[in-house]
């Protein structure tokens, strides 16, 4: 394939460019072209490993991404990191222009929005903890609806009596709300500062930070095989109640 030969040349170019570190219009590194082509073409965000696999060896993917991101920051299309993945998105200030492209989605109820926020800021969290914060029992459908959006996922089980399921947010949640990580949740600092993130601890205690890290916390057990079938089985609540 002719492209193989081209690939080699590209690598050489890259090295030179990396040396002077000046993204001159003429001397724009070929890997930026490759990166933008890949990211433009992809239907879903790509992580650095996926990108690296497609790029010639020796390309510093992270550096190239940063350079590309800087180039696109002032444009109508921006390169953004969502979760651990990268994707092009229209600039957020241009939503007025693009209303026609808006996809009609099911609106979440107030209860669902609040529950989702508590899950996001408080994860990993159990259903009972959500109910405690909201001061009301969750209606049967609320967690179902959130699971259906794909924004909320089951994480594991709390090492506590009854071993309740723990909930957290998914990668899709970050993608949807354009967040790099849950640490970037808006208002998180204020919430932490006011000591409002742990129901059991008074404000002067250290407050846990929400984490959607797949690694389970010390007080979490992994899901059991039957838990993982939930998507095909009855709604999570039902099972939890058993």
């Amino acid at each position, binding site marked *: 394939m002719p492209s193989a030969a081209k690939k080699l040349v590209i690598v050489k170019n890259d090295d030179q460019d990396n040396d002077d570190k000046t993204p001159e219009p003429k001397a724009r590194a070929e890997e930026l072209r490759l990166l933008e082509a890949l990211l433009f073409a992809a239907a879903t965000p790509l992580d650095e490993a996926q990108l690296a696999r497609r790029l010639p060896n020796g390309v510093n993917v992270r550096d190239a991404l940063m350079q590309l991101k800087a180039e696109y920051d002032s444009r109508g299309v921006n390169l953004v990191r969502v979760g651990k993945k990268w994707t092009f*998105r229209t600039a957020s200030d241009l939503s007025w222009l693009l209303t026609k492209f808006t996809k009609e989605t099911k609106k979440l109820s107030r*209860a669902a929005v609040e529950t989702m926020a508590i899950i996001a800021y408080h994860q990993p969290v159990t259903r009972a903890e959500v109910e405690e914060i*909201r001061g009301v029992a969750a209606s049967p459908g609320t967690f179902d609806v959130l699971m259906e959006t794909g924004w909320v996922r089951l994480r594991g089980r709390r090492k506590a009596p009854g071993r309740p399921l723990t909930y957290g947010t998914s990668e899709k949640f970050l993608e949807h709300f354009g967040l790099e990580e849950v640490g970037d949740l*808006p208002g998180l600092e204020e919430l932490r500062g*006011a000591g409002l993130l742990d*129901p059991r601890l008074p404000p002067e205690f250290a407050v846990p930070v929400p984490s959607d890290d797949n690694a389970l916390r010390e007080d979490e057990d992994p899901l059991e095989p039957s838990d993982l079938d939930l998507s095909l089985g009855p709604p999570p609540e039902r099972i939890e109640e058993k």
Partner: protein
Amino acid sequence: MSDNEPQASQDNAPPSETVTEADFDSAIAQTLTDERASSDPALVVDVEGFEGPLDLLLMLARTQKVDLSKISILALADQYLQFIEAARKLRLELAADYLVMAAWLAYLKSRLLLPRTAEEGGQTAEDMALALAHRLRRLEAFRNVAAQLMGRPQYDRDVFGRGAPEPIEEVKNAEWSATLYDLLTAYTVQRQHSTLARVRFAKRKAWSLAEARAALERLIGQTADWTRVDEYLLTYLVDPSMTATVVASSFASALELVREGEAEIHQRQAFAPLFMRKRVGVGAGQAVVEATPAAQGG
């Protein structure tokens, strides 16, 4: 709906916040009758519009128009109890949650009004009041961040991905699967199949009477002349091992044909060649063996 106004004004979040607010309103609106909506807000007792007693308390707290940290829990307890009282007068059914909260607040109120006594269970009435204020602040804080979160540019609502992503063309390189076992089974099965098939052919080296008869019928049908049966049959005797079966079967079949009047058979002498011909014009069953000596097949 002025009840909910404080909440609305408190969420000073980005424009998209209106969406969630609208959600909230519509959720509440569902539970409101027209009659209630048009009546004086102060008289509206719409418990169903609230997401539980804490939500109701939060709304009532907002009417105090002070920072939640400076709120008078005593006054709030009074407000709540009045609200519940009003609801009960209207014979509205209240969820147990609301009544439990009412009972708890009544208890709290009595404790707060009493002069501070010696520590009983460790928790003072002031501690309990603080804990309640903390819960209210926390609920409100989560509401605020929920609104902020929903106010963020959302995918496919405010920000968009590539409308026409270019598919990554997949060139599928076939990875063929077959195991050594597949290979060996395939080999042995077909080798045996053909070998055993040949063995069966060997067993069929007997010439059946039916086969012999069919051959003879074809033979005498071809000509009305006397035909040397063995000469014809010899063409079948490719394999010398078949001589016996061919001769035996054909002789038996020939006799059968003669008996049925289909054919005539003729032999000059013992062990001489057999001649055979189709019998014409004679009724069946009148078979005559012309040859005087008994026909012998050898």
